[in-house]
């Protein structure tokens, strides 16, 4: 059996589960209910509500990406400084929650943040006033950070471990202080990891509708919800696909922008 034949299953996989569905999205997105060509589904994004939802999604996913970066970078630095046996345990602990279904974990946060939830009960126990935590934009950003943080930590950690200690020592020998070593050596060398982390957090944050449904209580409309609504409630696959195409454009732009910094794919997480 030739090596090429072994690639067969993957080819079937890619065609069946990526290319054909993608072609269907394009087909539905560019046609109307009768099957005639139209750009209406794409242009529908210009309506006040939809463009508003898109901006809101961009805003919230930028917040969550920034928060993930701020949390993940120091953690990755700490992990790099640890001995191998210790840090593999920390990485393990970090990945552990991912063994559980993402929906269930988000629903658990629903219970924690709820008006009568665990956090407010604890506050109440100490005589503090209950906080309105859930069903806000803040809760959605929180949910995004919680769910996507590992996707930021791992690529950055990966990139950092590739920086040899000799490189850092050389910088020190040449008279660079800690700060200068960080800004001139460590940060630039870990850039591919940062970029790939940003992509891996930004894209799912931008497209999510589950987190905004569960932690936003339907009060905050994101572009993912607009698309979901077209499919599940309005039965308008054409419009839903059109919106998905618009979203895809945004994702492609962001990935193209980031790809310039990550030419060798060094920051790949896995």
């Amino acid at each position, binding site marked *: 059996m030739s090596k090429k034949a072994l690639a067969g299953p993957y080819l079937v996989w890619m065609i069946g589960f990526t290319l054909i569905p993608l072609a269907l999205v394009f087909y539905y997105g560019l046609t109307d209910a009768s099957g005639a060509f139209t750009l209406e589904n794409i242009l529908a994004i210009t309506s006040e509500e939809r463009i508003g939802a898109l901006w809101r999604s961009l805003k919230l996913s930028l917040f969550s990406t920034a928060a993930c970066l701020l949390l993940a970078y120091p953690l990755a630095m700490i992990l790099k400084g640890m001995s191998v046996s210790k840090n593999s345990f920390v990485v393990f602990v970090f990945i552990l929650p991912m063994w559980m279904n993402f929906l269930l974990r988000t629903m658990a946060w629903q219970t924690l943040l709820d008006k009568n939830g665990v956090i407010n009960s604890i506050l109440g126990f100490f005589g503090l006033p209950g906080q309105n935590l859930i069903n806000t934009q803040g809760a959605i950003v929180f949910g995004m950070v919680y769910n996507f943080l590992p996707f930021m930590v791992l690529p950055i950690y990966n990139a950092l471990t590739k920086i040899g200690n000799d490189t850092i020592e050389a910088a020190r020998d040449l008279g660079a202080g800690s700060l200068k070593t960080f800004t001139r050596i460590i940060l630039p060398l870990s850039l591919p990891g940062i970029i790939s982390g940003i992509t891996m957090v930004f894209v799912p944050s931008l497209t999510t509708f589950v987190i905004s449904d569960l932690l936003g209580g339907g009060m905050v*409309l994101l572009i993912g919800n607009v698309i979901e609504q077209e499919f599940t409630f*309005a039965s308008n696959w054409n419009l839903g696909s059109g919106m998905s195409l618009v979203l895809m454009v945004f994702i492609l732009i962001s990935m193209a922008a980031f790809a310039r910094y990550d030419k060798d794919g060094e920051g790949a997480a896995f």
Partner: protein
Amino acid sequence: MKRKSNIIILTFIAAALFMSGCGYDKERYPGGVVKVYNWGEYIDEDVIAQFEEETGIHVIYDTYETNEEMFPIIEAGGVSYDALCPSDYMIEKMISKGMLTELNFDNIPNAQYIRADILQGSKAFDPENSYSVPYTFGTLGILYNTSVIGREINSWTDLWDESFKGEILMYNSVRDLFVAPLRILDYSINTTDEAQLREANQMLKEQKSLLQKYVMDQVKDAMISGSASIAMCYSGEVLTLQEENPNLKYVVPEEGSNYFIDSWVIPAGAENKENAEAWINFLNKPEIAYQNFEYITYATPNTGAIDLMDEETLNNPAVAPGPDILKRCEVFHYLGESGEKKYHQMWLELRSYDAGR
């Protein structure tokens, strides 16, 4: 070499598993199959096994969450189901599009048990009662927690009461949602008049800052746990909820409301029409209808099942709404594509309306 052959074997196993999922060979199910597409949690699953045992027909059972989710799947025709259980207005829509087939009532003798007034009500969407057999029915009303809400509730306007801020839940589905403001304004719940809808939508926007959230099924958890105290709710949920939290009370507002009938229908071109009719007939056996009622707790139109109920259950207005309640309620009608679009646009505006969250 060894490794290579392992990979090949794995590939074959995967392929075999994959293929066994496709196609239902006649040898495997000599009694034939029936492909049922029903609402989630809308049957006692034991009933499926009992049906298979009694008839030898294998049931392929799938579920959906909303009428709108089910519709394009039937319309696209990629999967052919034999029996569906849509709501009134969706049945009307499917009949108008020629997507349903008339039932052969010779195969469904148990349809005789269906309550006459419900059949009469069904004529709103199925004028000859020829396409559908009612399965469940119920009203849309207000559910509230008497231990928190210190007064009697009997009007939709109570959902706009500022003293209940943060305690109110509204349905996350557009037609249900609009029932409240439309009835307060004394407009039909089937209106497609742009000005009336705008007026209603304005009310909903004003209400948004008072809400805890828009929900579907989570209404149950929130009302049982007490994290919300007043909610728009379908009567079918009420019995289960009252068992968990006896402080919950259900009322159909005086302004009137929606009443729905979910019925079994058979799509045009169903491959196993007779099996589907056997399925519908089986569900209407009194003891089976009662078993399903006990599980899903939505009101059943099956008189045979009603005869099996105890006094207390029969007196619960949520379970068996009397003619006085049904009189002030309206069935949803299919509004046509332009009507649906209007509601949809209103909803999009409402959902994107910033209520300061």
